[in-house]
């Protein structure tokens, strides 16, 4: 198949259309504007709906409406805009509605910068909106993977009736890479017999809501959600371990940062230092078990986490490693991207300290 050169944001939008997304609602913000721009042309071509909403809040609530009608729906934004969508995300979770949300993260807090960031990790993995909800979070580190994960995200959303987030940094949205469009085998999906499309002869009003006024009933619902999340935590863990067997140092990173760390690891290998890169592809559920096993190897002296934040995913790394090895952290923040040399320097420093 012929390779084509795609920009991350364009590829994510096209992948959504190919995955059957027929409703897109968004509001402009850098660095994800190519997604709504692309959708504004492509969605009508595909027989779908594109709306540039009056705000991010309106857009996520339009997603709620389309999803309640059984349509594959998506919205996208970048950090500040995703903050605005939190209430809507909680409602999607509470109404058990499938949807895909793309966050092309930029440097925060506040309006921050338009450059790449990874500081929305806590928001995505710990607390999507209010309440006890959880959300599957997928983190591509290349354009091919971004396109593939979008297709997967729509299936996961339908299977678990829960929103799924694609969490990427602005660099993934803005850079280009050659990709191939794969023919995907359609997944086996549960029927959307809950969709609010009228009674359709089954004598039951399909009512989609997150309002459960009887607390006892609401607790039962929350416990059902918990059951669903336990299943997801068991079955939907995704990661890639690169040269982690017998490594001296394991670097944990995702997205663009993982690419930088791989580059640093190759460089360090030439100096005779065995460095592995552990790359979570799913950020929730987190690959605790896989990372713990690798960290427990006798060869491993330290598990270094690198992020474009002041230290967020490192908390999951520490939960995984559970004190069996040191877990230092290196981060750049505010829109600054770590350099390969800086990561290599961190590894050198760790090795000096271990020997001392």
């Amino acid at each position, binding site marked *: 198949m012929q*390779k*084509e*050169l*795609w*920009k991350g944001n*364009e590829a994510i939008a096209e992948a959504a259309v190919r995955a059957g997304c027929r409703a897109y609602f968004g509001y402009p913000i*850098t*660095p994800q504007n*190519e997604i709504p721009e692309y959708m504004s042309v492509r969605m009508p071509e595909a027989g779908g709906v594109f709306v540039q909403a009056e705000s991010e809040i309106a857009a996520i609530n339009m997603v709620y409406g389309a999803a309640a009608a059984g349509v594959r729906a998506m919205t996208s934004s970048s950090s500040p805009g995703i903050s605005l969508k939190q209430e809507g995300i909680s409602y999607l979770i509470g109404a058990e509605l499938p949807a895909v949300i793309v966050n092309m993260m930029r440097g925060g807090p506040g309006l921050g*910068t*338009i*450059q*790449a960031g990874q500081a929305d990790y806590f928001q995505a993995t710990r607390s999507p909106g209010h309440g006890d909800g959880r959300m599957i979070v997928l983190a591509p580190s290349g354009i091919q993977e971004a396109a593939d994960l979008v297709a997967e995200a729509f299936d996961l959303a339908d299977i678990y009736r829960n929103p799924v987030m694609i969490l990427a940094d*602005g*660099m993934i949205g*803005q*850079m*280009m*890479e*050659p990709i191939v469009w794969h023919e995907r085998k359609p997944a086996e999906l549960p029927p959307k017999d809950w969709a609010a499309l009228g009674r359709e002869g089954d004598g039951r009003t399909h009512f989609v809501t997150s309002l459960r006024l009887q607390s006892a009933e609401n607790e039962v619902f929350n416990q059902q959600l918990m059951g669903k999340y336990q299943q997801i935590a068991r079955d939907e863990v995704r990661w890639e371990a690169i040269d982690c067997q017998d490594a001296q140092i394991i670097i944990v990173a995702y997205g*663009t940062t993982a*690419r*930088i760390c*791989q*580059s640093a690891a190759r460089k360090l290998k030439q100096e005779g230092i065995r460095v592995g890169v552990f790359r979570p592809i799913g950020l929730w559920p987190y690959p605790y078990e896989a990372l713990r096993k690798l960290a427990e190897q006798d060869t491993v002296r330290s598990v270094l986490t690198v992020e474009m934040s002041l230290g967020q995913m490192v908390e999951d790394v520490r939960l995984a490693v559970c004190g069996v090895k040191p877990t230092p952290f290196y981060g750049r923040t505010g829109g600054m*991207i*770590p*350099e*390969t040399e800086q990561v290599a320097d961190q590894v050198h420093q760790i090795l000096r300290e271990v020997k001392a």
Partner: protein
Amino acid sequence: MSLNNAFTGLLSHQRVFVILGPYGSGKTEIAINLAGMLARDGRRAALADLDIVNPYFRSREKEDILKAAGIRLIAPDKATWAADLPAVPPEILTLIQDDSLTGVLDVGGDKGSVVLAAFSEALLALDSAVWYVINQSRLGAQSPREALGLLREIEARARLPVTGLINNTHLLGETTLKTIMAVAEYTWELSARSGLPLVFNGIQESLAPDLTLPEPILPLALVMKRPWE
């Protein structure tokens, strides 16, 4: 490196070179390398970053490289430099008015060409080169018919007729000689359909020595790298 004969002729007729084209066709790499050629030829060279659509990978990020190559950077002032604002540097007029200066206009992709409309009369009066960059592996460029449609849209927004084509077909680090040779017929057909000459080919400098093409080759030293490259 001195200019080869083919390029001496190509660059000696004009003072201002407008580089425009679709999103991600490689305009910035072409513009920076072309400005480098002009500077190496001993001309007072400038590069104007007129990208009002892209937030990342803009030529203004490479100020150090340009300065080292003796190229004057014309870009929005520092206050708006890192913003996503459609800010046009007023210094662009220096390039248009100063006869002793030669320069390249690095224009944003697709709809970004609208930035030229305000200067189109002046650029026409200067008999500027208006070169359109094509990369067949990009969106909307698969067939010559599609590519020509986009070209006409972009030049209409610019209010500036395109005067020549630059073939810059590539797949970044995955480009091979095969990638380039495979589009020979495509570029020939696009040139015939549009009535525009293919002025040169932009080829990554690692591949350029192995190629012989009917049109001149501009070997590209790539500068717009991803953070891990």
